[in-house]
C-alpha cells in the first residue's frame, strides 16, 4: 500500500492509526503531497486565493487555487462534477470516475461534504475532462454564484420512511434548472437539497438555501396487529409514548380488551394548508395545529370503523394499545422511527424551507431555513408546481437580492411574508 516517504514526517504520523487514512489515498495518487506536508508544518494552508473561473467552454464547474509554494506546484485546478442524486454510485460510475481522474486528473477523487464530486487537474485539461465526463453521462457545474448541485437523501429505493421520492424530485429540478447550475449569474451561490421525510438525513434545512422536505399532513396510522406483535417481541410502549415531543400518544384502555380497530383515516379528513405543520423548526409557527379537533384513532369515535381481525395469542396478556391525539400531533417522525406499527399519514407532499446555511458569513451567520410553505401536495410524481415555485423564487431573489446576499439573509431582510406575497402564494391555496 502506498506510503509517504521520510520527507513527509507529518503525513507519516497520519497513517499509523487503525482507521482508513486519507494520506494513503493521497500518496496513491499524483496529488502533490508536499503541499499538504507544508501546510501541516507551517500550520497554514499552502494554497492561496484563486477562485472559480469561467472559460468560454465551461462557464462553471472549474476552479483554480493559487499556490504559496510555486517550487512545488504553480497552481492547482479542479473540476466539480454534478453528482447523481441520493449519493447513488454504481460500480460502473465509480470506474468511470477512476478512469477519468487517472487520465485527466491526478488520480484522485474527492466526494465533497456538499454532495458533489471533485477532482484535481490542470487548467489545460479542464475542457477535455468535461468532455470525457459528458461521454460518461456526467457533467461539471456548481461553482461560483450559480445554482449548486441539487442533492437528495437515498429515497424510497432504500428507505422505508420516504414520504416523497427525494432523488427523483432533485433530479427533476436539476434537469429543469441545468443551465442555472452551469452559468453563474446569481447574486450569490444557492444550494438546494431534497429530503424524503422530516428526519432530513442530509440536513438540508440547515445546510441548503432551499430544501424540500417530504411531509404528511393526516395523522400517522397505527396498525394494531403489528403493534401487538411488536409489543410481544418486547417493544417498549412507555418509551414510545415518552418519545413523542407533543404528548400526543397515549394508551388506549378500550383497546386493551383486544378488539382494537384500525383508525381508518383515508379520506376521513383533509386539512387546509397552514393548519398542520410537520416541520417544527420554523420561525413562524402558525400555532394553528391547536385549531384541529382532537381526533383519537381508537374505536368508538369513528362510526363504521372497520373491525380488524386480531390474532390474539391466548397465552399473552391483553395488549395495551395506542391512540394519537390528532390535535396535538405535530406530524413528526419520532414515533414512526421507533415503532414499525406506526406509519406516516397518506396525504403527502413537501414543505418548502428556504434560507438555511452552515457558514458564519453573511448577515445572519448560520441559520435554519424558514418554512415558507408547510405543505405542497405531490400527486403522481408530478413536480411541475414545485419547479415553478422554485424557479419563481430564484428569479425574485436574483432580481432583488443585494450582491453576495445569501437566500437566508435576503429573506430575513425582506421578511418571509413578503416573499410569499411576491410569489402570489396564499396560505389558503
Amino acid at each position, binding site marked *: 500500500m502506498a506510503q509517504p516517504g521520510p520527507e513527509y514526517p507529518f503525513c507519516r*504520523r*497520519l497513517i499509523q*492509526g487503525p*482507521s*482508513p487514512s*486519507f*494520506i*494513503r*489515498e493521497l500518496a*496513491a495518487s499524483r496529488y502533490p503531497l508536499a503541499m499538504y506536508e507544508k*501546510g501541516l508544518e507551517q*500550520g*497554514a*494552508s499552502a*494554497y*492561496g486565493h*484563486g477562485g472559480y473561473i469561467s472559460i468560454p*467552454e465551461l*462557464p462553471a464547474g472549474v476552479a483554480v*487555487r*493559487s499556490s504559496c509554494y510555486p517550487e512545488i506546484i504553480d497552481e492547482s485546478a*479542479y473540476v466539480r462534477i454534478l453528482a447523481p442524486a*441520493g*449519493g*447513488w*454510485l*454504481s*460500480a460502473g460510475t*465509480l470506474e468511470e470516475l*477512476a478512469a477519468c481522474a487517472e487520465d485527466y486528473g491526478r*488520480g*484522485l*477523487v*474527492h*466526494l*465533497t*461534504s456538499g454532495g458533489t464530486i471533485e477532482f484535481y487537474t490542470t487548467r489545460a485539461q479542464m475542457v477535455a475532462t468535461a468532455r470525457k465526463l459528458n461521454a460518461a*453521462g456526467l457533467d461539471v457545474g456548481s461553482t461560483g454564484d450559480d445554482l449548486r448541485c441539487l442533492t437528495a437523501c437515498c429515497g424510497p*429505493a*432504500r*428507505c422505508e420512511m420516504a414520504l416523497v*421520492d427525494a*432523488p427523483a424530485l432533485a433530479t427533476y429540478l436539476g434537469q429543469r434548472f*441545468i*443551465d442555472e447550475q452551469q*452559468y453563474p*449569474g446569481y447574486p450569490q451561490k444557492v444550494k438546494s437539497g431534497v429530503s424524503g421525510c422530516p428526519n432530513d438525513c*442530509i*440536513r438540508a*434545512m440547515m*445546510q441548503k438555501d432551499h430544501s424540500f422536505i417530504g411531509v404528511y399532513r393526516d395523522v400517522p396510522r397505527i396498525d394494531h396487529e403489528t403493534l401487538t406483535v411488536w409489543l410481544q417481541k418486547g417493544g417498549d410502549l412507555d418509551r414510545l409514548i415518552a418519545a413523542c415531543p407533543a404528548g400526543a400518544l397515549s394508551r388506549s384502555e378500550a383497546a386493551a380488551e383486544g378488539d382494537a380497530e384500525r383508525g381508518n383515516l383515508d379520506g376521513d379528513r383533509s386539512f387546509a394548508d397552514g393548519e398542520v405543520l410537520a*416541520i*417544527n423548526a420554523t420561525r413562524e409557527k402558525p400555532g394553528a395545529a391547536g385549531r384541529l379537533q382532537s381526533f383519537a384513532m381508537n374505536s368508538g369515535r369513528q362510526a363504521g370503523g372497520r373491525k380488524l381481525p386480531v390474532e390474539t395469542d391466548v397465552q399473552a396478556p391483553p395488549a395495551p394499545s395506542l391512540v394519537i391525539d390528532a390535535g396535538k400531533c405535530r406530524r413528526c*417522525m419520532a414515533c414512526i422511527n421507533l415503532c414499525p406499527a406506526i406509519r406516516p399519514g397518506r396525504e403527502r407532499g413537501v414543505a418548502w424551507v428556504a434560507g438555511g446555511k452552515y457558514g*458564519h*458569513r453573511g448577515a445572519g*451567520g448560520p441559520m435554519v431555513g424558514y418554512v415558507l410553505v408547510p405543505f405542497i401536495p405531490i400527486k403522481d410524481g408530478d413536480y411541475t408546481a414545485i419547479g415553478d415555485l422554485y424557479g419563481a423564487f430564484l428569479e425574485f431573489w*436574483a432580481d432583488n437580492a443585494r*450582491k*453576495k446576499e445569501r437566500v437566508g439573509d435576503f429573506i430575513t431582510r425582506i421578511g418571509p411574508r413578503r416573499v410569499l406575497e411576491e410569489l402570489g402564494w396564499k396560505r389558503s391555496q
Partner: protein
Amino acid sequence: MERVQTEAERRVGMTADITELPAGIMPDYRREIPPELRQRQGSWVWHELVRPGVLRHLGADGGELFTVRILLPPNGILSAPTLRQLAHWIRKYALTGRRTSRQGFEFVGVQPAVLGEMLAELQAAGFPAGGTGNTLHQVKCCTSFIHCQNAAIDAPSIAQVITDYFYDDFLHPELPAALKISVSGCPNQCGGGVEADIGIMGRYESIPEVDEEGFLNANIDIGLLLSWCPTGAIQPRETARGTLVTIDAGRCARCTSCVQVAPEGIKLQQRSYAAIAVGGHGGNSRYGSEMATVVWPRVTAQPLQYGQLLERIAAIINYWRRVGIPGERLAACLQRTGWEEFLAGVGAEPFAEPGTGRRAVANKRKGIEAGQL
C-alpha cells in the same frame, strides 16, 4: 442551427452563438440503481440493525435488503485504485453503492449468503463495517489544507486523529445513541459543525487586519464589505487617500467574511485555534433542528497537536455515557440535564451568552460566542 439564448445565458450576458456548447447533463440517479432494486422501490416497511455496519430493510412482501456501511478515509478522498476497489466489491457482493451524506460509503443489496465473507474481506482490506446505530458515525470534515486557502485549522487530520482515537466506538455500539462529529477548517463550515452532536470549527486568533496600502490599491466595494459583516464591526473612515475601514475588535466575531470580500485589503493573522460546539441536531424528527452551542471557544489545534481536542471530546462522550439514557442523542440529553450540569460535568467554564456587550444584531446568531476572547 441557431440555439436560443437561455435565461441563464441572458443573465450573464452570453450570446447564444457558442454553438459547440453541448446541453448540460444533470445525471439521472436511476442509472445508478439496477432494475431489481428499482422495482422494489417504496416496498420497504422497516429496517433493523443486524450488527454494526449492517442494516436489514424489510419489505411489505416479506423481502429483505442488506446494506453494509463502511468508513471512508476523512474528507471523502479516494484514489483511483480505491474507487476501483469499491466498484469491485459492489460487483462481487452487492447491487449498487452510495456515498452517504456524511462522507461514508454503503453497499446496498448485499446477498445474505455472502455477507460474512464480505465483512471479512472488508476488514482485511482496512475498511471495516461500522458507523451505524449507537456508534460513532463517520467523522465529516472539510478539505482545509488539502486544497483550501481559507483554513485556520486542518480538518482532515483532526478527523483522522479523532477516528483513530475513538475507533472502538465506531465498531462497537456502546454509546447511548448515534454520535456525529463534524470538523470544519474555518467559520465557513463547509464540513459542517452546527448540525453535529460535536462540531469543531477553526477560528483565527485575532481579528482580521486592514492592510491600508493593499486596501486602497484594490478596488473594494465598501458597501458590499459593510453589508457582509454580520456584527457591524467594520466602519468606513474617510482619509485623504480614500476610504479605509476600521475593525472594532469588541464586535468582531472573527467570521472571516470581510477577508473573503476583500482579500487584497483585509488579512488574517496566522495563529489559529479550534472552537468546540456541542448539542447540534440537524434532523427534524422531534423538536426540530438544533444548532450546536460553543462550549470551548479556544482550543489548541496546531497541526497534529490535537491532545486538548481529544481530551475534551472524551469528556463530552464520557459525560453522555454517564447520564444519557439509551436512545438519547446528545442534544436531547443536554436538554434534559441542562447546560449548567453539563458544563460542570465536562469541566468547562460557562462564558458570556451570545450578544453580550454587542449590538442586538449579534443576538440572532447562534453558534458564535462573544466577549470571552
